[in-house]
Structure formats: C-alpha cells, structure tokens
C-alpha cells in the first residue's frame, strides 16, 4: 500500500481510538459508552492489520484479527451483560463533571505529547509519530477510572488503559513478541471475566449496586 494511504489510514485509526476514549468521558449513557469501546476495539484491530499489511507480516494480521474478536466483540458483550442486570443504567453524577472532564482530557493529551517526545524522537516513522495518541488514551482511561463511581465505568477505565497501551505497543514496535501480545490480550479478557464474576457476586449479595455504596473499607 502506498505511503500516503498508509499514513492517512493509520492516522485516522489512531485518532479514532483517542476519540472513542474522549467519548466515554462525554456520554453519560452506559450503553453509548460500551458502543464507543467496541468501536475503539475495531479501530485498534485495524491499526494492527494495516501495519501488518504494510510490512507484509502475517503474524501481525492474525494478532489484529484476535484483537478484533476479543476487544470489539467479546469484551463489549460481557460488559453489556453486566449493564443489563443493572436497571439504573445511566451514569450517576461523576466526581468531576463532564465539561471539566473533557477539558482535563485535552490537558492530558498535551501531557502525553510532552512526555513521549523522547520516544517519538527515537522512532521517527509514520507509526512512531502516533504513539502520543496511545499514551493519551491511557491517561484518559486512568482519569475515567479515578473519577467515576459506577462499577461498569471503572471497568471501562481499565479497558481504555489497556487499549491505549496496546496501541502504543502496536505502533512502537510493530507488535511485541507474540507470546507477550497473547499474554496481554489474555490479561484483558481475564480481567473482564473476573470483573464480571465479581460484579455478579456483588449484585447477588447487594442488589443493584453503585460503587459509592461500597465504602465500608476506608480510613
């Protein structure tokens, strides 16, 4: 594929990943947030596949398909199951309100750019220049994790962090060794399964829960 098509496709997909991260801070409905997550998984898989096609590396394309299956299909499905059991599926008042969160997301993006200057200097390729977008997605996920109350939103935060890290991994090194990549994807899947199991336990014991109610343990 030609250099400019490759550059624009990669740029679009990386930007889509960051956009989906911002959308999870923007929208309040959990259903919309999960849809954004699915689209982000799709964009991430496309990044892997595009890089694989460009470098004629079939392993990377396979990894992209795996990522597609895991992050764009299975994980959102698991989360929707958790959400469906929860009747109050709108976000309660987050700790930081939406406009402030969005401005914080913008600030975090700039922070990501500042922090990864040395990395982009080391990898001056088309893919390397997009690394800050991955780190920004990770920081936005971290922010979402810290400022959200509902359990599902915290799961979403973890997934954003994971997706951001995976994006950086794909862009920086055209995929880490297959074993580690499998480990990473497995990690996401396991984490979500564990979280789903926990959520089910919690719900069976407490009824529909808001993490705000889980404040027995504190100092």
């Amino acid at each position, binding site marked *: 594929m030609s250099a400019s098509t490759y550059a624009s496709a990669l740029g679009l997909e990386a930007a889509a990943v960051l956009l989906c991260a911002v959308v999870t801070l923007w929208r309040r409905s959990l259903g919309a947030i999960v849809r954004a997550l699915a689209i982000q998984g799709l964009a991430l898989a496309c990044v892997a596949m595009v890089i694989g096609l460009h470098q004629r590396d079939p392993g990377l394309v396979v990894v992209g398909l795996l990522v597609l299956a895991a992050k764009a299909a299975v994980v959102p499905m698991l989360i929707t199951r958790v959400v469906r059991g929860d009747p109050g599926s709108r976000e309660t008042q987050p700790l930081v309100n939406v406009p402030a969160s969005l401005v914080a997301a913008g600030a975090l993006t700039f922070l990501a750019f500042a922090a990864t200057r040395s990395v982009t200097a080391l990898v001056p390729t088309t893919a390397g220049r997009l690394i800050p977008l991955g780190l920004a997605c990770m920081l936005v996920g971290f922010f979402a994790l810290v400022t959200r109350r509902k359990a599902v939103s915290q799961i979403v935060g973890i997934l954003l962090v994971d997706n951001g890290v995976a994006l950086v991994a794909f862009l920086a090194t055209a995929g880490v060794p297959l074993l*580690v990549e499998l480990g990473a994807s497995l990690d996401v899947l396991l984490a979500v399964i564990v979280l789903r199991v926990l959520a089910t336990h919690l719900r069976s014991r407490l009824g529909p829960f808001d993490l705000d109610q889980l404040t027995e343990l504190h100092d």
Partner: protein
Amino acid sequence: MLVALLALPVACGLVCGGAPWRRGLGWLGTAAASGVLVTAAVLAVDVVRTGPVTGLGGFLRADALSAFMVVVIGVIAVLATWQGVRYLDAEVAAGRSSRRHASLYLVLVQAFLATMLLAVLAANLGVLWVAVEATTVVTTFLVGHRRTRSSLEASWKYIVICSVGIALAFLGTVLVYLATLHVGGHGPHPLDWTSLVAQSHRLDPGVMRLAFALVVLGYGTKVGLVPMHSWLPDAHSQAPAPVSALMSGVLLTVAFYGILRFKVIADGALGPAFPRTLLVVVGLLSLLVAASLLLTQRDYKRMLAYHSVEHMGLIALGAAAGSPLAIAAVLLHVLGHGLAKGVLFLASGEILLTEGTSEIERVPALLSRRPVLGGIFGFGLVALLGLPPFSLFVSELNMLRAEFQVGLGWAAAASLVCMVVIFAAVMSHGRHLLLGPRGTQGPLTTPALVAVPLVGGLVGCAFIGVSAWPLQPLLHAAAHVVAP
C-alpha cells in the same frame, strides 16, 4: 531442576482440583510447599557454587537473586499452607464454605505459588510480566474467598487498581523492547534480561527514563508503594489469613524483584542518579503515608497491612542506595519481613478465628487469656519493629548504614523519624491488644499444631538475625547480581 520447582505446585493443584475438601488434601499442599523449599535450597547451593542455572531451553533462568527469592517463597509457603489446613477446617466446620469451595482455595493457592515461582525464574521480561499478571488474577479470587460483602469489595478494589498497575508495567516493558530494537536486538529473545543488561549502556536514555518511571509505578502498584497503595490495606485485611501471609510476605517482594531487575538495566542506561531519586521519593512517601495512617488504626489486620507499606518503603529506600551492602541488606530484610509478617498474619488469623472480630478494641489482654498465641503475636510485633535479636534489626541497620555511605543520609534520617512514629503507634496498639487483666475465664490453650509453625518461623527469624551463616554466600552473590 527448575522445571521440577514449577511442576510441584502445579501437580499438587491438579490433584486437589479433582476432589472435594479433605484434611489430607490440605496436608498434600503443605507437602508440595515443603518440596519447593527443599528444591530451592538445593538450587541455591548449586547456583552459589556454579553460577546461574537455566532451564526449559533458556526460558527459565535462576541466578543468585532468583534462587534467594525462591527460598523465601518456599519458606513462607510452608508456613502458609500449614495454617491453611486449619483455616479451611474451621471454615467448612462452621458452614461458611462448602467442600468444593475449600478445594478451590487449595487449587488457587497452588496456582498462586506456581505463578510466583514463574515470575522469579523467568529469564525474559515479558514472561515476568505475564507471571505477575497471572498472580493478580489468581489472588483476586483468593482475596474474595470468604464471599462476604467487605471481602468482595476488597477484591474489586484490588483487581481494578492492580490491573491499571499491570498495564503501566506492560507499557514500560514495551518501551524497553522499543529501546532494544533500536540498538539492533532482534534476536529470538529480545527481552532476555542478560542480553538487555549487556546492552544497557547503549539504550536511549530518554526512553529508558520513561520506561523505568512506568515500571516503578506499575510494578510498584503490586508492591504497595504510594501512590498506588490503596488496595493493600483492604485486600490484606479481608483475605483469609494464610493468603494475607503469602501476599504480604511474598507477593509484594516478588513485584519488587521485578523492579530490581529493571533497575539493573536502568542503572546501565541512565546511571544511578535517576533510578535512585525515583525510588527515594516513592520510598519516603510510602513511609510517610504508612506512619500517618498507622496512628489511627482500629483493626489489627489493617494495621499489619499498613506496616507492610512501611517495610516496602524501607526496601525501596535500600534499593535506592544501590551498593552491594544495601542490596544484601534489602534481601535479608525481604526474608525477615516475610517470616515475621507471615507469622503475624497467621497468628492474627488464629485470633480472628477464636475471637470472631478483628477490631483491636474488642480483643484485649491476649497475653493473659491466651498465653501462647499472645506470646507469638507479641514477639512477632517485636520482630517487625526491628528490635534485636530478630533479623529485621540487622537488615534495617545495614540499610541505614549503606544509605549514609552513599550520600542519602537525609533520606535515612527521614525514614528513621517515620520509623519512630510507627514504633510508637504499633506499640500502643500492641499494648492494648496484649496487656490487661485476664477477666473471669481461665487461660485458653492454642493447639500445638497451630503454634509450632509460628514459633518455628519466629525462631528462624531470630536465628538469621544472630548469624546469617547459611545464607551469607547466597546474599553476597545475589547482591552482586543487582549491584555489580
């Protein structure tokens, strides 16, 4: 031999998984742990004599540092699995858990041991990461084993925070991989630790700085260093006592082992200044937070958990100093802390079992009501506070000495102040717990089967404190792995 080390707990886990709980299965777990300890001792002797051992075609590697960690894991595993039998017996007898659930516990503990062993024996940073990730997943279920509301909340918090930490550590590993690729490390195992150390002076400093910071934050989450420590008190206080002992005594230090491995590479790439500053900051913060929060604890298990944060802070400070004396002291501290904290958590589990509450206010006068248990708890606290003849005294002293030698005197002084505050806090809590009039009941006895391993652990800790004789060459060799 390395494969045998891993195979033991895996095999035991598979056996236990098949059957519902029986006493015998529990003892089988202890036997597996003892097997691990014996193999670890053999491995340590071998490594000290002939140098690093590899296994599974270069996949596993044991140098002196790994061998020492395996010994630590073995020792505390024996203690924890021994007590585990009693814990599960009580749970099944009280009807709080079914037999199936109890054997699930056994399987999970063995899996936990296997993943920790894999983490310290990994030759490859990627495998290290996968193993630490696996420990997170396994321990989540263990923390929530009791299925009460607060333990479920604790395990939720645990997995949420540790998943983020693991992701950060993954990013750090990816960045290190990126740096090696740039200097041409395209071999079959680009993340192999020995080759990374060999090339470390050629790695790009900017990238390595970011990578090391991410690794300290990421693996530091699992170590319990501030600012990612908030899962620790909840998880360690809500988990069953043997699991708390394992997690507090071993898992924290296995995660710190990961940081140490990265530190060697970072020292080569960046020089000692940056890693030292980072570890000093994190260590001092942990000490400060632990000191301030220990003053107001009302729950003895939480108190012990915060104490772990303090010790991890001390270990971070010692590692920051970086000289061979400092690292040897850190490793000795790891073993001593593991023993003492393990004994204390197991004793507290016994107290919880018999008293039914974990609040300090409601468990007074242990020494007069339950002399043996109170004595063990008291001596354990003494050990943990760093008083002679226990080994923590020696290790803390040497860490402070090394810090002064290296020029971190101000940090050492600050840590001393924090330790004094912690001493006062723990003493006051301990006084309330242990001393006081007996009341109308006569003294209750503790079964020997419970007391023996705990006493044995304390004696071992004292023995090492007086003379590190059997461990000295191992400590030397391990220190020189990290600080050549």
